[in-house]
């Protein structure tokens, strides 16, 4: 059996707890140091298949501003961040855009959607 210890800093809230994860054959066997449930969730995911929230902007035509803020929902695998960014940079939308609008479905094959996180009114 192959055992491994990982020391993580939780990124789920500003406290930034130091969390220790024990793994056996790639499976999590214990999580210590977290002070909440979100921390345990984070550590279990981070140790096996880390994900991140990607936020960016998408180019927009005909709006009061040239870009609109977006986020990928749910979080995307860490190794897909740049593939997701390539798709976001290539995208163009037309104003108006409303908070929650899906602008790119299944971005870069991750199963996550890129949704607007701000409103953009027509110029």
């Amino acid at each position, binding site marked *: 059996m192959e055992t491994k210890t990982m020391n993580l*800093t*939780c*990124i*789920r*809230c*500003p406290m*930034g707890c130091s969390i220790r994860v024990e793994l056996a054959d790639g499976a999590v066997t214990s999580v210590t140091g977290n002070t909440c449930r979100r921390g345990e969730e984070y550590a279990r995911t981070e140790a096996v298949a880390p994900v*991140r*929230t*990607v*936020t*960016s*902007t998408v*180019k927009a035509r005909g709006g009061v*501003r*040239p*870009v609109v*803020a*977006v*986020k990928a929902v749910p979080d995307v695998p*860490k190794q897909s*961040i*740049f593939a997701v*960014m390539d798709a976001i*940079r290539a995208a163009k939308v037309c104003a108006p855009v409303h*908070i929650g609008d899906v602008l790119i479905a299944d971005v870069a094959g991750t199963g996550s959607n890129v949704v607007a*996180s*701000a*409103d953009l009114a027509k110029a």
Partner: protein
Amino acid sequence: MSVHDLIVIGAGPAGLAAAIAAKEAGVDDILVLERDSVPGGILNQCIHNGFGLHTFQEELTGPEYAGRFLKKAEELGIAIRLNTMVLDLSKDKVLTVTSRENGLEQLQAKAVVLAMGCRERPRGALNIPGYRPAGIYSAGTAQRLVNIEGFMPGKEVVILGSGDIGLIMARRMTLEGAHVKCVAELLPYSGGLKRNIVQCLHDYNIPLKLSHTVIDILGRERVEGVTIAQVGPDRKPVPGTEETIPCDTLLLSVGLLPENELSENAGVELSPITGGPVVNESLETGVPGIFACGNVLHVHDLVDYVSEEAGRAGANAARYIRGELTEPGDAVPLRGKNGVRYTVPQSIRPAVMPEEVVVRFRVAEPYYDRYLSVYVDGERISHRKKQIVAPGEMEQFTLRRSQLGPDTREVIFCVEDQ
């Protein structure tokens, strides 16, 4: 001159929360003045996530967080005047304002909430030698250019200062295809949140050079590089450690300054430590009826705390308008000692304090395995063990009315070894 019960200066997170709380406390005639063309303040350009965990129990982006408060303000019918700049505020609470629509006008308020926020320390405050080429931006300016104007300010980037805005911009510039070569930090520790070190620097292999600073900027027309050097305990460059890094852009994330020109015009006393007004338990400044909250009062780490604090300022402004703060009695000073740099508020009047008052404070440097203690006239009323306390993160203590007596002389907040 038109007269309003309450005028709030600024429609960022602090101004919106203050106006909402005042309205909910029964003040009908509220006017919020905002110089920008949109409400929401700095949150509009903070498109990253991490806002709202305390307030909404979920992680929101900046625009989403602002959107929640705007919706509430709209539902309550709070008037927000955009594109309107306040030029002057007098101690009699007369505001001189200008706008394209109405020109120059004067408004009289019964109470005022200051919610103007803060601005970034500029290059001029740093004494970095070198020419003045294009390519030097404060981190927040770069954030606005990228996230609002859709414009990338550079490709090869060095960031000076490891506050949260610098860290967030290191990631943002990297995601947009720039090469962030390093983040240099003068102090031996980062002023940013631990989670931002992890998710903005470690995730993208961006080196954080602690105890380093920029000692020269190269290039006449455009930045061509910067020279960084290690600094000693005296924060002066150590000879022989200089390293020149080619780059076309230097971002500065070197601190925030509360924006208090209007407060000073009104004769409001400012704290030399926070840069914001000196306030009592009601978040009222030394000028009766003028309240302050958010980053104009003291720079906060989390917007959730801004909203909470601003809500109290708004509710207290409502009490003032109703005439409930007219016989306040004596004030008990709150002081920071032994590692606690300041407290907000700076004083409490037991006669008018509510059941509980939240006291926020910051420590002077990072401490490990110490205690945060509170003394009332020499008697210790709180003693909390902390694994780590850092200057970048605000601490808070809830002081209850029952803990203060009519003869209380002072309350001390301090860091203790045991």
